[in-house]
Structure formats: C-alpha cells, structure tokens
C-alpha cells in the first residue's frame, strides 16, 4: 500500500514529483560548478557585448538602443538553446531510472526544460532591472509575457519530446540539434530586424518558429505592444510541434528501456 494514499492529495504528490526531478536536473548541472547560475547569465551578456561591439562600432548597424535590442532577443534564444540541449538528453541521462522504475517518462523531459525555464525567469528579472535603469517605461503589455513565456516553454518541450526520443536511438542527435541551433541563431532576427532583409523576403524567417517569439519579446519590452498576428503564429507553431513531438515520443517510448 502506498503509505496512505488516501491521506495524501494527488496534488502534493505531483508537486513533489516535479520538485524532486527539477531539483535533480539543477543539481546535476551545477555539481562542482563554483558560480552555478551566474554562468548562465554571463553567457548571453558576454555574447551581447561581443555583438554590440561588432555591430555598433564595426558594421555600424543603425538600430536605436541596440544594446537592449540585442538583450531582449538573446535571452529567449539562450533559453531555447539550453532548453533544447537539456531536453534532448533528458531521456538518455535518466537511463538508470527508466531501466528500473515505471513512471511517465515524459516527466524527465518536461522537468529538464523547466529547470532551464527557471534560469530564464531569473535572467528576465535582471533584464527588467536593466531596462528600467536604462529608461524604458514599463507597460501593461508586459503582462503578455505571462502568456509568451509558458508558450515558449511548451514549444521547447514539444521539440524536446521529438529529439529526446530520437537521441535514445541515435546518440548523434545532440550534434544535429547543436548544428541546427547554430544555423537557427542567424535565421532568427536577433542581431538584425525584420525590415533589414531585402524586400519581400522577411516571411521566410517565419519558417523558423523562434522568429515570432523573439519579435514578440522585443516588441513587448521596447515598444510596449503585443503583436497579435505574431502571437497567432507562435501559438500555431507551439500546438503543432507539441502534438507531433508528443505523438512521436509516445510511439517510441516503450522501447527506451531496452535500447538504453
């Protein structure tokens, strides 16, 4: 008998489950790391610094407030990258558990990405501090983040369902993901803006699901506007990716224990 199931609410159990698994991911990540979380902040900041110097002083890009322009795009991208990297390896790195215990395997993907989401949230706090210090006026539209962030979370989970299942069979999946992320970085309007592309071609960028997300974040922060058409695109991408990724995962998951 489960030690008194009747007395314990399901809620308490699921809360603990998510807690313990997420805590595990963070602990595994920061074992023997002196600065821990600080590194995950320093990475986008150092990137921003490099890009800022390169594009402001060398290529002389004419974008207002280029530092904030960069930061508002780099942080969501950084989360996308780290979330996918963790998510992709979620099943493989939980092999000992999956081979021995029966539990919903989706959970390790979901909590792995959640750990990275927490980093992103903390980074957003830092970013908002910077924005306010830099004279950006907060707007009601910032509440749109409460929709946008969960949406991006689901998008990352959706892709991770697919790649984590694939990674069980092909360990090189992470390499492919990393290469795709490298290319994806330049195919997302992070360093540049949509209107800097030669006329009529900007729609191509929307083939990349992260384009609408980065644009949304930026417009919310810097212009105080939630662009509904972009939000629509983001929702469609998220739903499609989530459903496909989940189905793919379900199709393969019962073979995980024997292949790992």
């Amino acid at each position: 008998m489960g030690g008194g199931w009747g007395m314990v609410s399901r809620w308490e159990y699921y809360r603990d489950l998510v807690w313990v698994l997420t805590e595990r991911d963070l602990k595994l990540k920061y074992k023997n790391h002196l600065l821990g979380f600080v590194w995950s902040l320093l990475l986008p900041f150092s990137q921003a610094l490099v890009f800022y110097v390169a594009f402001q002083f060398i290529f002389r890009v004419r974008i207002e407030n280029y530092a904030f322009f960069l930061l508002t795009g780099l942080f969501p991208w950084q989360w996308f990258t780290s979330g996918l990297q963790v998510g992709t390896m979620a099943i493989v790195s939980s092999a000992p558990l999956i081979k021995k215990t029966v539990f919903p395997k989706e959970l390790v993907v979901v909590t792995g990405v959640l750990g990275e989401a927490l980093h992103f949230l903390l980074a957003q706090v830092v970013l908002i501090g910077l924005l306010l210090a830099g004279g950006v006026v907060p707007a009601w539209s910032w509440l749109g983040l409460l929709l946008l962030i969960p949406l991006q979370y689901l998008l990352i989970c959706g892709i991770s369902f697919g790649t984590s299942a694939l990674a069980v069979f092909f360990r090189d999946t992470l390499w492919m993901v990393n290469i795709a992320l490298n290319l994806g970085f330049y195919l997302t309007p992070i360093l540049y803006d949509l209107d800097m592309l030669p006329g009529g071609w900007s729609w191509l960028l929307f083939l990349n699901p992260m384009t609408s997300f980065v644009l949304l974040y930026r417009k919310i922060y810097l212009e105080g506007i939630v662009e509904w058409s972009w939000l629509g695109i983001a929702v469609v991408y998220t739903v499609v990716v989530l459903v496909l990724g989940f189905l793919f995962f379900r199709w393969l998951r019962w073979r995980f224990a024997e292949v790992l």
Partner: protein
Amino acid sequence: MAQDVVVSVQHVWKEYIHYHHILTSLKEVVLHLPRLARRLRESRFLALKDVSFEVYRGEVFGIMGHNGAGKSTLLALIAGVMKPTAGTVTVRGRIAPLLELGTGFQYDLTGRENIFLNGILLGMTRRQIQKKLDDIIAFAELEPFIDEPVRIYSSGMLARLGFAIAIHTDPDILLIDEVLAVGDEAFQKKCLKKLDALRKEGVTMIFVSHNRQQMEQICDRILHLKNGQVQRIERIRQSHGAEPTATTATTTDHEEHTHHPTRNAH
C-alpha cells in the same frame, strides 16, 4: 488453486532488435542492399519463447538459468519497464523497483538525493520519504557515505542502498536480480532475515540467482529457464506462510511442468 495469483505470465515472447546492427549497417544501404536485409533478420533476437507461469501471493519464486537465458528480461517484463512482443503479463499490486546490479542510481547525485529520487518515482511524497529516510540509511548502514555521490560507492554499497530503498517502499512484490550476491556475508544474512519477515507479511518475491543452495533455502518454487524457454518448474516446499525452516529443502522434489504449445516443443 484457491490461492491469489499476483503475477501471471501467459505465453510471453520477447524479441529484441539489436539497433546497433542496423545502425552500423546504414552505410551499407548504399553499398550492399541484400546484405542489409540479412542483417535486419539477424538483428532480431528471441530472448523469451512462449513463457508461461503464475506466482501466488506470499510466494517466494526463484528463476534460474545460464547466462543469457532470459532471466533479467523476464523480470523487466514483470516490472513493466519493457513490453512483451507477444503474450500478456498481469501484475496485481505494487512492485518495488527492479533490484539489479549497477542500475537505478544517478551517479553524480548523493545517496540521500538518490533515495528521494527513487522514492518519488515509486509514488511516495517527499514527506513520506522523509519519514523513512533514517530507516533506509540505517538499514543500508551507509551513514558516513550518505552525502557522498553514489559514484564513489562500491558495488556492495550500491546493492545495499538499492535493497534498503526497495524494502522500505511498502511493496507487494519484490523483484530481486542477483543483488544479494555482492553484499558481504553479514549483509546477506540481514537481507535474508528481512525478506523472511516481509514474506510473513504476505509480500511476494521473485528471485534470480545462480546460487543453487541459497535458492533452495529461500524459494518455494524455482523456474528453470534455458535459452528463453521454460524447462521446468520445480517445487521446493509447500508454499507460503509455511515456516521457513531452511534445511527442509528438497524433501518433496515433485515437479510441475508447464504446458508447451506444439510449435516450440523441445
């Protein structure tokens, strides 16, 4: 026959696909297509062939057989971590984690963290685990090491920890795959005593071991597996609840044969 069946394995087949075979041969798709077809056929391996048996409540059931006979595969199917290719496995009750050598722990986490991780995946809340934490650590006798990463544990220490967690999760069914073998003599004795107590409480146990003598001491029945097929099921003693007088083994050596369908009669 009036006994409760807690584990029922009916005509179970298990086929493994050796993906490595297929994957390394991806190159050959271009070069030698016929060879690939052969590889695909060769890459399938029948680990279990039409295995059927039942285990009753409170019984201690042993599985023996040579290396590669399919014992661990069978336990994994009962534990539910794998699915049979054909046939059915029905389990009534709560199963403890599969006790196997070398798995079940995240090597970079400490013993304590692993206890929480295992406990939660078995359906316990943090509060429930916290309550049993001291008992688990004490039973495993790992106090000085419990906050060290499991990576530095010896195989005996890992087995202790796994065993201690498993028996403290209030299981109805325990699956034990050779873990006792790596414990030292004192710990083996302690485990056997604990298992005996659990058995009296009605916990069902399925054991895999190569130690014939030990198996005869603790098991009510032993299934002999050979190349994935049931050879025979040997009754050691009149089943559960009976006082486990270890030395009365093999007095009644009458055997029980399982029915083989004609296609794999051997």
